């Protein structure tokens, strides 16, 4: 399964992803951080291959299962190590741990993003489309 990738140049800070995620899950698992009102960056779970959250979880509540980190609330002790360990601050504690499960494969944050700043793809597809965009921009400069 692909992962959610962000193109921060496309983000307009509208927070649609937050509102959609909250509607779907009750508590948003993505949050948009505005930096000095001059840029916006959605912060969310990147499904790290060597996930720090799973590495520090001593009960096995968070653990790697193939490509994804899965969460078993029954084993969670709310110790809080995972949300300290996450480099993106993407895990939140609100009487239970909230972390992204990619909505089972069709994440609403990606589907609702007005500017396609969030994409669910595998990394080859992302780099491929970045390459073709860059080529398009360069070609337009050559034409003018």
């Amino acid at each position, binding site marked *: 399964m692909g992962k959610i990738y962000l193109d921060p140049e496309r983000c307009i*800070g*509208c*927070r*649609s992803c*937050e509102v959609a995620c909250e*509607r779907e899950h009750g508590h948003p698992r993505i949050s948009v951080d505005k930096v000095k009102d001059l840029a916006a960056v959605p912060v969310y779970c990147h499904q790290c291959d060597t996930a720090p959250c799973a590495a520090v979880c001593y009960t096995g509540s968070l653990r790697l299962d193939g490509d994804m980190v899965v969460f078993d609330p029954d084993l969670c002790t709310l110790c809080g190590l995972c949300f300290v360990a996450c480099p993106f601050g993407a895990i939140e504690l609100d009487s239970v741990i909230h972390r992204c499960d990619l909505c089972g494969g069709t994440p609403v944050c990606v589907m609702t993003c*007005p*500017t396609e700043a969030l994409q669910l793809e595998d990394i080859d597809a992302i780099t491929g489309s970045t390459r073709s965009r860059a080529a*398009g921009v360069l070609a*337009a400069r050559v034409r003018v």
Partner: protein
Amino acid sequence: MRMTARIPTVCPYCAVGCGFYITRNGMEYMQDHPVNEGALCPKGNAALDVLNHVDRLRYPMMRIGDDWIRVSWSEALDRVAEEMQRALREKGPGALAFLGSAKCTNEENYIFQKIARLMGTNSIDNSARRCHSPTIIALRRMLGTPAMTNPVSDLALSDCIFIIGSNLAENHPVVARWILRAKDRGAAVIVADPRVTPTAWLADLHLQLNPGTDIALINGMINVILNEGLENSSFIKERTSGFEGLDLSDYTPERVSSITGLRAGDIVRAARLYAKAGASSIVYCMGITQHSCGTENVTACANLALVCGHVGRPGAGILPLRGQNNVQGACDMGALADFYPGWRSVDDSRAIDELRRLWNARALPLGRGLTADMMPEADLRFLYVMGEDIVNSHPAVSRRRERLKRGFMVVQDIFMTDTARIADLVLPAAAWAEKEGTFTSTERRVQWVSRAREAPGEARPDLWILSEVAARLGFDLSPEPEEVLAEINQAVPAYRGISRSNAGARGGIIWPCPHPDHPGTPVLHTERFSTPDGRARISPVHHPALERTSPQHPLILITGRVVLHYNAGSMSMRSEGLVKREPEIRIDVHPEDAARFGVADGDAVMIETRWGRARARAKLTPRQKRGTLFMPFHFPETNLVASEIIDEKSMMPELKVAACRIWRAD
């Protein structure tokens, strides 16, 4: 009611016209919709919150002193008709006024204005007065059709996009999708806005001009284009008239630089980018229209496009972004004091005579009626407001709300708005997804919306209510949207071929649609303009007097919108997911201005213009231009300080700029 798994609908918020599905338990995205491809902004995601909201009006209610009592529909409807007839009998049609709704369907607005006109008055208006009345006047005169020339998705085909006076990234977020697609192909994006908005983040060239200096900038660009021979001479010769009167040689880059505060080199660069590109588009919104020179501002935009021939081709057009889900439609239907359905001027007796025959009317009123701003000053005996919170959306009305209600006042809405609170009778209406009919989006896309939910309590579709009122006045007007649409086919030429079937297909149909088998017309003016002689009018405009700062009011207040709220807030303020992210009014202040006036981030401050005073919380941000402040108008405080100066041609208030001062409220 038959319940299928998911019912397609159109977002009730802004005018982009995004599609989504309503399901039994919530919503689903519609990935094959031509405008939004499944995407929705935060308001779209929260759209269902207004349905079955605890605050929904459920029963007709009559005022008794300060109390409200529930009454039956028949009592309420009888009363509306009696009061309307009494006002007419005692004071004549000049004592009646009607406010239509850019949130109601085409069919509802058509019937509403028809009732007003059959009662003998042109005093019918809608909120388009405060978003694009200058567009209506200027583009109708210059191009023949007062609407966006190209669809939104066409922006992806542009090589240069010039965005002036539009913060679309916050107000029409899905439009940014298509602009980014153009950028992916290497298009240049120019944004002219005094503030560093999220739209400006998308720009290759951000022109942070002084507020209200748009005409100088555009004239300066045209002057560069003419001096460098970048104009499209064959287009000017074959498709326009009036070019010979366009002498803008005074607008040198240096002089324009001193007016706008921009670097002369940036003005030249913008002109070259726009003129040299294969296909350029101009996108504008209320930063252009909400000025005392709003009509001239729109004229200047159209001049620029016409001189370069950037109209009438894919990716080349003039795109005024409309505000509400059916503001284009409400205007097409003639819910305007200066136009009958189909853009027939109230002064054109021959055009109106066609409607008189269609409606079997003895006579129809001529001449402009009262616009919304004029209503508090008029000697009204009867006011009928359908789906508009005029008290929270018009500064002039907001300040004089008690004068609005001199006679009997009916408000038909989905919530008890501040306007409904001053009424004598409140009628509960069905919301967009609880009824049927067509909505016309900003790109002239007409889409049929089906009923997906039951209305709460005794709330009824506006069309049913109007039909019942009309019956009591002796008019036989259908409550069935399809039957009304069939009459609209005859009354509005651009809608001649529009039906439930083509408007109900995925993505509906873009007018003009002259016959039932016609595929619609996404790009206007491809071969000729819709003016009488087929040519577009170029018409020079110059810089008018501006609102100026003074020692007493040294700053300029800019008003506008934020992404999480919508207009007067009667819908968005009832969405928990939106309100908790944007709970209160904040006034944006540049840190240097804050230091100058002793204001710190988070301080409660007072702001004063010559129109009034208001209180807000200061937010220090480098996105604000030095010397200016910004207040979003979703909160009533902004109406206390906004300007009442009017653009006489369009009756648009100058809401964008007002000289002001600010101090810490201790």
